[in-house]
């Protein structure tokens, strides 16, 4: 662990990313302390600019506090990003592991299914799924997971393909280990590094998809999110720029931070890059 941190620390941008992410996490966790009121509540004069009428970042057309929306929206974004990614990694590992390990017909079948999902444009597919299931946190998580697992499946399949022929795996066969145990106990731990890396990047993509859905009005109507804020302010972009801009910056910074962390994890976990300057 200490060695991992030394290697991670070598990438300064990644440390910065981690710092930003911790700030956002802190913000999300303490949202109810700084803004104890419901972010949907109308708390002042509509369309006040930043620092006007007691609003830090202004208010929107109905008089809701933009800053309050951002700190409460952080919770939504991070939660959805994390859960959706975990679900899609789970599905991806399942498909990829079986396809790579058993090969042959199983591989053909599972990979054709994966390709069907890959051929559909992911964002449009996500819109379709949410529209069918009615917008809610649950349906959004499912939609994001369904459109993003094929990448994980491909990656895991590749790892399993190369690892299953390694001699240590063959040695497990010679002592009579069952297939499931070989897959879970022997092969999977050895392909965790790339999964962690791709997973961290997927969190960023999931946040983007969630914002996109909320922007189009397909977010959960009871929960404040950055995408919803941008969607609500888009008609007044020229007269009240702050309504869209600050949530937009929040998305930008969060996604950037997560990408930097992903890069740093890749450097730290990939032994071939250990010697890189």
């Amino acid at each position, binding site marked *: 662990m200490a060695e991992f941190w030394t290697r991670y620390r070598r990438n300064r941008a990644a440390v910065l990313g981690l710092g930003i992410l911790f700030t956002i996490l802190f913000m999300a966790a303490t949202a109810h302390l700084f803004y104890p009121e419901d972010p949907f509540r109308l708390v002042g004069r509509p369309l006040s600019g930043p620092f006007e009428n007691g609003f830090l970042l202004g208010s929107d057309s109905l008089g809701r506090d933009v800053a309050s929306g951002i700190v409460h929206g952080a919770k939504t974004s991070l939660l959805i990003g994390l859960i959706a990614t975990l679900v899609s990694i789970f599905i991806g590992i399942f498909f990829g592991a079986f396809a790579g390990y058993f090969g042959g017909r199983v591989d053909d079948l599972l990979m054709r299914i994966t390709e069907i999902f890959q051929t559909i444009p992911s964002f449009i597919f996500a819109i379709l799924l949410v529209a069918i299931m009615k917008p809610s946190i649950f349906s959004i998580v499912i939609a994001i997971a369904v459109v993003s697992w094929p990448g994980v499946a491909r990656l895991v399949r590749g790892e399993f393909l190369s690892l299953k022929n390694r001699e240590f795996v063959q*040695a497990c066969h010679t002592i*009579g280990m069952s297939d499931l145990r070989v897959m879970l106990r022997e092969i999977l731990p050895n392909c965790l590094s790339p999964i962690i890396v791709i997973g961290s990047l997927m969190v960023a993509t999931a946040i983007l998809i969630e914002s996109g859905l909320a922007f189009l009005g397909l977010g959960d109507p009871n929960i404040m999110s950055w995408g919803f804020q941008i969607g609500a302010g888009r008609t007044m972009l020229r007269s009240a720029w702050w309504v869209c801009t600050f949530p937009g910056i929040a998305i930008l910074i969060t996604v950037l931070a997560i990408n930097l962390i992903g890069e740093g994890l890749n450097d730290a976990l990939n032994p071939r890059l250990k*010697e890189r300057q």
Partner: protein
Amino acid sequence: MSTPLLSISDLSILLPDGADRRHAVAEVAMKLHAGETVCIVGESGSGKSLTARAIMGLLPAPHVRVGSGVIDFGGEDLTKVDYERLRNIRGSEISMIFQEPMTALNPVMTIGDQIDEIFRFHVSMPPEERQKRALGLLEDVNLPDPPRIMAAYPHELSGGQRQRSMIAMALALGPKILIADEPTTALDVTTQAQILQLIKDMQRRLGTGVLFITHDFGVVADIADRVIVMQEGLIVESGKSTQVLNKPKHKYTKSLIAAIPRLKPRKARKRSKEVVVETSALHKSFGGGRSFFGFGKNAHAIDAVSDVNIELRKGETLGVVGESGSGKSTLARCIIRLIDSDTGMVKLNGVDITSLKRNEMRQHRKFIQMVFQDPFASLNPRSKVGDIISQGPMLQGIEKTKAHQRARELLDVVGLDSKAFDRFPHEFSGGQRQRIGIARALALDPDILVADEPVSALDVSIQAQILGLLDQIRKEMDLSMLFITHDLRVAAQVCDFVAVMQKGHVVEVGATNKLFTQPQHEYTKSLLEAVPGKDWHFA
């Protein structure tokens, strides 16, 4: 004596901070004359390759760099010359060939284009002239049908052909010095013998000075005029090849030479009547391309093992020898049923295991165990050594404390400290890892051990230790052993019987001493003929 082509004095190469030693090599001094072959021998990590790379200015800078010393090449100090000059020297005055010709050649350029490139960079001549010179070169290195080779990509050639092309390229501009870094290590013995002969012929014709890096004393005996022995970055002995090989002075040289398996077959032992493994008409082929959804016939199937009948009797060691692609590893994996054979039978203690279902096979697994070739790939890097060894018995239903107890005993049997139990594989050296692999194979108390090239990835001194260990446990535990190897020296040392494989067929089987003294099949004869250093009878 004439002035040397190359003279190195007091060369030291620095390693990055935090490495296990300060210098990769230190105080290296040597000379190379025209028409002479100097061999640098040493085990892995002795600094022999880095010395060669320093001459070419190919050290992995900035981590590893020359600390001090002079590399004098015709009056110029190669450690001081600027980059432009160095580039001019490389290829035209000093050239180099590498161990693995597949990675040293550019995979997306034809051989012809790659040779052409050398001429274009270093001399100006019209294209037709360059074409003619390239064809001539390929002819010189005895490649069949040079025009075809010119148009071929590296993957279309065999390993030997690739190495010949590399040599053609290296000699394209008539360099004064050829540096060869383990050029035959990745090749089969028969190909190796041809390449060594080729280097010797070319050298005689062109008067090139050859600096030959190798770990194999057999190769040294075949090719060297002078020998330099390196150990941990220092030259421990140097001199005329006859003198170093036959009357080594330094104790390290002596120990290295003593560790080389003798090409003298071991004495025959009494043969048991009990057959433990028997194959009859065993056949396995691998498919070429597979069509959509796996329908349709296999495009071009290759017979990896065809019509193999061998038997292994109790307590004996049966060697399976052959070159790469002969099917010896496939045979071993069919016998231990890591892969399913197509037709034929494998009888294990009288039971045909080819017809067993996967879960039925599990009960028979404990009778036959395997030791693998690559000590770095054969242990799960994320499991502790103790778990690796004890998981076999635990799967067979032995309780955890007993299995752990047994694992500690086995660590002792294979000569490792029982502290190894709680450590991870990466904390061990290649030889130690191979010991762990052997302990794992022994954990189930098998009757039969299948060893697939168990020593080919190890240095010669470690190799001798592992072979000794295998022989000792075979005796103590009354094991029968199937020993796969490409090295006839090793086979001569450990095997009672030897089966020679070529292209999937067993072409000859016989008692080791008989097979080595009176080989019947042409292929066996050519293999024996190609063993490096076979004429060298060391003390």
